């Protein structure tokens, strides 16, 4: 029989996480004997729409994509449905008027990630119930879905403890350089001692760690650092005692996605929402986990 053809539109290659995600999907497709049409949207929704349209024109068997942003997918998804091509969402959800426009969504829940980070901090704060903790936040790119959701989830949880105060929040654009730069500025502002840093991704946390060290402080001790993603670099930092915890956001969706695609094309019923297994990795388990990290 003809091999299954899948069109996949990726957001871009802006971070390690994303690259790992791409690699996983490509590998899995190869292993599964699925022909993968891969298109990189370079962070632009319009490019993704273009890619989807050309997948439709090519009459692929199934379309999968990681939406750049939640809204704005109605029209093109309708075209896909008209062409009878099932659509699978990965990594991020979309908001459409008619939920039947996509078959299923597999991926992480950014709000939940923020909550997990918040919960870890709540637990941590219990060790010294009376101390006020002054938190600074390094946000992702302003307006991007992970930045908005991770902030939302985190704030939702820490609101329950009045001792936890978010004093500063600034965008570090998800990059090391910006994370470092912003952290430098935070550290110089001597109005309040910084106790906790919450970074929306590991890259910014790693940049901030450098800034903290250069300020003569001990990251992970003088300042507690929480971040999200769980890339290899974060585990190395944890092993070195410079990072306290990272919330995993699993990019290795490939195998699951391929299986799902086969099921969908074969007409098997699938769940509407498939969450990937994602853990929270505090520094204590880092050494044990590090060898298992693939990216």
């Amino acid at each position, binding site marked *: 029989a003809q091999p299954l053809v899948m069109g996949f539109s990726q957001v871009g290659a802006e971070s390690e996480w994303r690259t790992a995600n*791409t690699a996983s999907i490509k590998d899995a497709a190869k292993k599964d004997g699925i022909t993968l049409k891969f298109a990189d949207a370079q962070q632009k929704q319009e490019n993704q729409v273009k890619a989807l349209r050309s997948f439709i024109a090519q009459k692929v068997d199934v379309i999968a994509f990681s939406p750049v942003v939640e809204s704005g997918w109605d029209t093109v998804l309708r075209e896909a449905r008209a062409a009878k091509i099932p659509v699978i969402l990965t990594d991020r959800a979309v908001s459409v008027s008619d939920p039947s426009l996509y078959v299923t969504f597999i991926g992480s829940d950014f709000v939940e990630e923020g909550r997990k980070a918040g919960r870890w901090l709540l637990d941590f704060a219990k060790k010294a119930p009376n101390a006020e903790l002054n938190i600074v936040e390094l946000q992702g790119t302003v*307006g991007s879905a992970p930045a908005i959701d991770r902030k939302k989830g985190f704030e939702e949880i820490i609101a329950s403890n009045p001792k936890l105060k978010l004093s500063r*929040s600034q*965008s570090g654009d*998800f990059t*090391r*350089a910006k994370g470092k730069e912003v952290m430098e*500025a935070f550290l*110089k502002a001597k109005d309040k001692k910084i106790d906790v840093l919450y970074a929306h991704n590991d890259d910014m946390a790693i940049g901030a760690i450098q800034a903290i060290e*250069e300020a003569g402080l001990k990251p992970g001790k003088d300042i507690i650092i929480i971040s999200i993603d769980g890339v290899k670099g974060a585990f190395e930092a944890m092993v070195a005692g410079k990072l306290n915890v990272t919330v995993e956001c699993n990019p290795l969706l490939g195998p699951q996605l391929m299986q799902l695609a086969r099921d969908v094309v074969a007409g098997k019923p699938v769940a509407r929402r498939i969450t990937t297994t994602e853990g929270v990795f505090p520094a204590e388990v880092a050494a044990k986990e590090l060898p298992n990290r693939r990216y």
Partner: protein
Amino acid sequence: MHAALPTSPSSPAAGTPMLSTRFSQGLMGHPLLRPLAALALLLLIDLCFIPGFFRLEIKDSHLYGSVIDILNRAAPLMLAALGMTLVIATRGIDVSVGAVVAISGTLAALLVSSHASLALALAAGMGAALLCGTWNGALVAGLGLQPIIATLILMVAGRGLAQLLTDGQIITVYDPPFFYLGGGYLLGLPVALFVVTAMFSLTAWLMRKTALGLFIQAVGINPVASRLAGIRTAALIFFVYVFCSACAGLAGLLIASNIKSADANNAGLLLELDAILAVTLGGGSLAGGKFSLAGSFIGALIIQTLTYTIYALGVPPEVNMVVKASVVFVVCLSQSAEFKQLWRRLGSR
């Protein structure tokens, strides 16, 4: 020709500022005055609203404080602006600066992390940057492509090349000597600052001791007349693109060394826009011919101080852009002779 317009005898309005700088030779008329004033104003805001902004401490036997941070951070931008200044002076533009930063930084960091000697790594980074410059120069000066499109090619492809080197990964470097360039200190000051000063002095020296500055200006203002006067216009234009890439390459090394990693995805992203902004804030004209190395440096400092101020003041990130835009508008308007006239007229009423 276009660039010549501002001072053409038939240009009533624009002729005046040029002359006024010449005749009121005092401090008031100096072309660097306005960018300096803008910088001073920003620093004044910092002084008033950010406690301890100017405080310097000694930490680990080097200076430590906000001002040092700004200088350190501005270093790559200053370098990029330095190269961009010359390109813009010839009426060109180079939008590939960010990509060149990514290429040189990535290559050097990659080599260091795979245990090549530091010298080799740095040389390779610079070599790659020079190659990029040669490419740009050949397209603009050799083929006569329009600068923006010629450099756009490298802007798009260059970052791809850099990512190809790393497979899109951010590769962390664990080799302390490599950190010295972008993060080390010499005589208590950041090494990056010395790099920038050296580069600036070299360029300023070239401008003063050789006829380079004169030729660049002439070519920027009137390329036809320059060619007829016997200036090697093509060679000159080629040179400025190579020089610009070299500066960008050096900036790339500083950045890679500072963040201790090869980040092909994001290093130097949009640096070209900031560099162009720095040049214009410093009084350089995109129509060619008018440039000031020191002005561009001040422009870079304005940008970095502004960024830092936004962070330190705790401006919410969603407002950043509006603040930045407003400051740029204000600085530009303050440099406009026409605006000053209007102001005066309103004042005298």
